[in-house]
């Protein structure tokens, strides 16, 4: 009897341990091994950093040639001092992994379509669907091609290999107790890093920045509405503001391009649930002012790349110093080098060039087996690739992907397509074998304009506008990337994939890319607008170009003299809503004020007296933005509601159409019996906006809908776990220099004054240096960032210079 009791009790004990030492999924919700996770000796509590936390003062590391010194400053930014390149990149890998390992690995898993290995298939297979999409877009294929291109370049290979070795040296030190928080929560362990992961990270940036297109949407629009409407709704060039570079008739080359290309209009309209492309509200600003316009007489360079904001932050600030290199700025965890920043003689910052680098080719299959397709009058074999997905908790899922001469066919009857059994092949510039590691290797060592130009010759993607300034006094702008030479209209519509001659027949040579040095106006700037004047010989198209920020920047910069860094900080945080200035008086004029409700009267008054600044407490900004969002949806309801692929025209063009073509058929709201024109659709948009804000006020028990409160800015965790994100109060919006929309905005604000006595840098980003949610450095820069304040950043020549700004120092000691 007693023996039985013992056995029962022991079984309960062991059963409990088993239960609490394993991950369970209860109703789609994963629960970590709760005993292990909550154990205060090894579990998540160990990720809480104490108030007096400091990193280790020495680390013995195998793989270093010499000792390396890492000085952390008060923001926990590491300043790495090494004796040679190999140790420098090894240390960058090691130190970055110490603070951001989970993020580095998760981002590369996401790029490679491997999230479901960690999370399981998810509700409605959402993670598996995401993973399949990544593989079908050829992300791993692209990264492998990029790796192959590195093979011939000793420097590029050395960088990624040493960087990877550093990461792996850190991974080897980990025990459960010291694992980053997310590994404990999600219950898995890091796998060894490899150079391929660096390439995957690079490709994931390219996916974010240069995978956008509207070919299918334009093809459908052409079929549905005809040429005239397409030209009216989607002009290639909106002709507003200054292009990034204006050198009329100074382009002394011709394009030698045949002038037509066949479009392949499909028999039926294209209906594909397309994977999300580039978000048109993401953009960036950069500019450089020459010494003639500054108080110090030295150039100032400014940059604020706008991205989806997330935690851990997308950027990791770092200084790298070794013989021949001293660079400071922000890096991408997972990529060696500094991406945006300065050396001791030059500075640079990047915005997206927007250019169309994606084409879709209609494929003619021989039969339903899709084993052969037509190319240059022959039936050619498709290449079948079986993608395997090791979905957590499920058997391996297999997906068959077809590759053609053009690239993969992402959408077919097995994935996201509803009618296009014909198949469309995806041609993306980033499938080509290139990598940009060497460009940053050279840029991080550049001393002058010539070095800068030489470095950029190695930069292929994502196509970017590089603003440049040097301590020698030069400023410059270069619109660099690998661009196909396009025939007029090429790339705007789906193309016929049965003839190889329809493909890109060449790339614009680097020396014919758009660039400008020391222009007469005394500054260079870019904000994702149309890049060049009309005399540039090559045809340019994109999903959209920016129309507002660029004009505001140029207007202010044109009027400023004796510029101080503080003026530049003010400009980066400028909340002026040029779109509102240009549209609101017109909108208000269209309103019939006689039948206003009380809230409508109040909103009308607020808007009428608004100064067009989207400041945090501006209630008029909330009304204007809500009005605009509702109006946009009412106007383009014909495009939004369809199963087939269509796209909205740009904000700028919509406002222009409202003013110029008040009777355009699109202004009619399809769900109402009456026929709306510009005036009545504007009125309806207003009523809906006012009542939705009234609803918001009721819900929030608030008498005022201040813009920051109403917008409710949010920086989410990469895993989209609500409690790990934070809410922020910010002014601005998309189309405004301070480009903070709800979840997107300036991911890094940088100002560099290139003084002869030494380069000075100020910066801030919405997050913190630590990727650990248990660290005070997880979000410690957010308040400064939201308030438009900056930190003067340390740019050291030797470790001792940090003085009172030193937080702690870690010696990386070589271990034999």
């Amino acid at each position: 009897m007693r023996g039985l009791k013992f056995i029962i009790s022991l079984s309960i004990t062991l059963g409990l341990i088993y239960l609490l030492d394993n991950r369970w999924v209860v109703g789609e919700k994963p629960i970590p091994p709760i005993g292990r996770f909550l154990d205060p000796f090894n579990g998540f509590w160990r990720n809480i950093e104490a108030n007096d936390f400091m990193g280790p003062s020495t680390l013995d590391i195998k793989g270093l040639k010499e000792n390396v010194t890492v000085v952390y400053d008060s923001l926990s930014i590491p300043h790495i001092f090494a004796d040679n390149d190999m140790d420098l990149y090894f240390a960058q890998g090691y130190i970055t992994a110490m603070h951001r390992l989970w993020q580095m690995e998760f981002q590369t898993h996401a790029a490679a379509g491997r999230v479901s290995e960690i999370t399981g298939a998810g509700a409605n297979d959402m993670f598996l669907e995401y993973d399949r999409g990544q593989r079908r877009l050829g992300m791993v294929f692209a990264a492998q091609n990029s790796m192959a291109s590195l093979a011939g370049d000793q420097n590029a290979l050395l960088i990624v290999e040493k960087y990877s070795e550093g990461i792996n040296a850190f991974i080897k030190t980990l025990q459960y107790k010291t694992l980053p928080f997310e590994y404990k929560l999600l219950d898995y362990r890091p796998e060894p890093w490899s150079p391929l992961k660096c390439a995957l990270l690079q490709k994931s940036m390219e996916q974010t920045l240069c995978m956008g297109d509207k070919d299918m949407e334009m093809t459908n629009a052409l079929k549905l509405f005809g040429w005239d409407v397409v030209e009216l709704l989607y002009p290639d060039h909106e002709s507003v503001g200054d292009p990034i570079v204006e050198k009329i008739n100074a382009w002394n080359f011709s394009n030698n391009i045949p002038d037509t290309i066949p479009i392949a209009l499909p028999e039926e309209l294209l209906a594909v649930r397309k994977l999300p492309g580039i978000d048109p509200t993401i953009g960036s600003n950069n500019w450089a002012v020459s010494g003639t316009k500054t108080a110090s007489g030295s150039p100032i360079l400014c940059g604020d790349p706008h991205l989806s904001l997330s935690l851990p932050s997308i950027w990791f600030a770092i200084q790298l110093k070794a013989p021949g290199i001293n660079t400071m700025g922000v890096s991408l965890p997972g990529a060696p080098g500094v991406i945006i920043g300065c050396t001791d003689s030059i500075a640079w910052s990047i915005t997206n060039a927007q250019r169309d680098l994606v084409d879709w080719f209609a494929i003619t299959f021989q039969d339903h087996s899709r084993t052969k397709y037509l190319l240059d009058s022959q039936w050619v074999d498709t290449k079948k690739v079986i993608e395997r997905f090791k979905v957590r908790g499920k058997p391996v899922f297999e997906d068959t992907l077809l590759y053609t001469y053009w690239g993969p066919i992402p959408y077919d009857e097995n994935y996201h397509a509803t009618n296009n059994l014909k198949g469309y092949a995806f041609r993306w510039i980033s499938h080509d074998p290139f990598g940009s590691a060497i460009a940053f290797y050279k840029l991080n060592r550049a001393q002058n304009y010539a070095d800068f130009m030489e470095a950029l010759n190695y930069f292929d993607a994502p196509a970017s506008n590089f603003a440049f300034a040097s301590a020698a006094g030069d400023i410059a702008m270069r619109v660099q990337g690998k661009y196909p030479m396009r025939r007029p209209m090429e790339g705007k519509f789906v193309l016929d994939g049965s003839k190889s001659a329809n493909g890109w027949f060449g790339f614009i040579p680097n020396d014919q890319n758009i660039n400008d040095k020391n222009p007469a106006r005394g500054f260079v700037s870019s904000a994702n607008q149309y890049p060049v004047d009309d005399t540039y010989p090559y045809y340019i198209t994109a999903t959209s170009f920016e129309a507002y920020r660029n004009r505001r920047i140029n207007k202010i910069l044109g009027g400023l003299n004796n510029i101080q860094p503080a003026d530049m900080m003010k400009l980066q945080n400028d909340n002026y809503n040029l779109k509102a200035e240009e549209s609101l008086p017109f909108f208000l004029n269209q309103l019939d004020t006689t039948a206003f409700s009380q809230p409508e009267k109040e909103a009308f008054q607020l808007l009428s007296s608004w100064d067009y600044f989207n400041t945090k407490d501006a209630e008029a900004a909330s009304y204007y933005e809500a009005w605009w969002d509702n109006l946009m949806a009412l106007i383009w309801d014909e495009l939004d509601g369809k199963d087939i692929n269509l796209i909205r025209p740009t904000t700028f063009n919509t406002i222009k159409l409202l003013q110029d073509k008040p009777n355009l058929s699109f202004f009619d709201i399809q769900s109402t019996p009456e026929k709306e024109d510009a005036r009545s659709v504007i009125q309806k948009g207003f009523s809906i906006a006012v009542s939705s804000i009234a609803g918001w006020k009721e819900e929030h028990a608030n008498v005022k809908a201040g813009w920051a409160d109403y917008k409710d800015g949010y920086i989410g965790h990469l895993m989209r776990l609500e409690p790990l994100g934070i809410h922020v109060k910010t002014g601005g919006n998309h189309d405004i220099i301070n480009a903070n929309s709800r979840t997107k905005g300036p991911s890094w604000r940088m100002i560099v004054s290139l003084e002869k006595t030494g380069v000075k840098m100020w910066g801030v980003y919405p997050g913190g240096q630590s990727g650990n949610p248990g660290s005070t450095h997880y979000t410690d820069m957010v308040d400064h960032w939201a308030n438009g304040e900056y930190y003067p950043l340390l740019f050291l020549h030797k470790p001792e210079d940090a003085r009172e700004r030193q937080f702690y120092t870690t010696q990386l000691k070589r271990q034999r």
Partner: protein
Amino acid sequence: MYTNEQERWLESGQPKYGDAQQAKKNQMFMKFIIQIVAITFSAHLLALFLPWYCIAITPFAFGYLLKSNTDFLAGFCSIAILWIFNAWLLDSDTSSDLSVRVANLFSLPSKSLLYVIMAVIGGLVGGFAALSGALLRK
């Protein structure tokens, strides 16, 4: 200092029935306290080197060695106290709010509930381990 009755009893050297019961109770209580102290300290030591489920080892051992009527309770309380105290040590000396975030991740309204759940989880393992140890001893 003593009442007359107590003095007489002390002089007689004879235990009184009710007092004997009280003494036994005291003895049991002392044993319970000793069990808790022994388990807590030894479990703390082991936890520095072993995975979390080492919290079953010392309650089992001291359930066996110090068998009492309250083995389960002793095991439960020891581990609950050990875990709460150590979690609190880490959580009180930080300006990070990770414990609140974790509570929210588990849809708990406050971090006190997270502590309760943690204590119950550790406590149950410790309790059943102690009970098993005691039952093993004939």
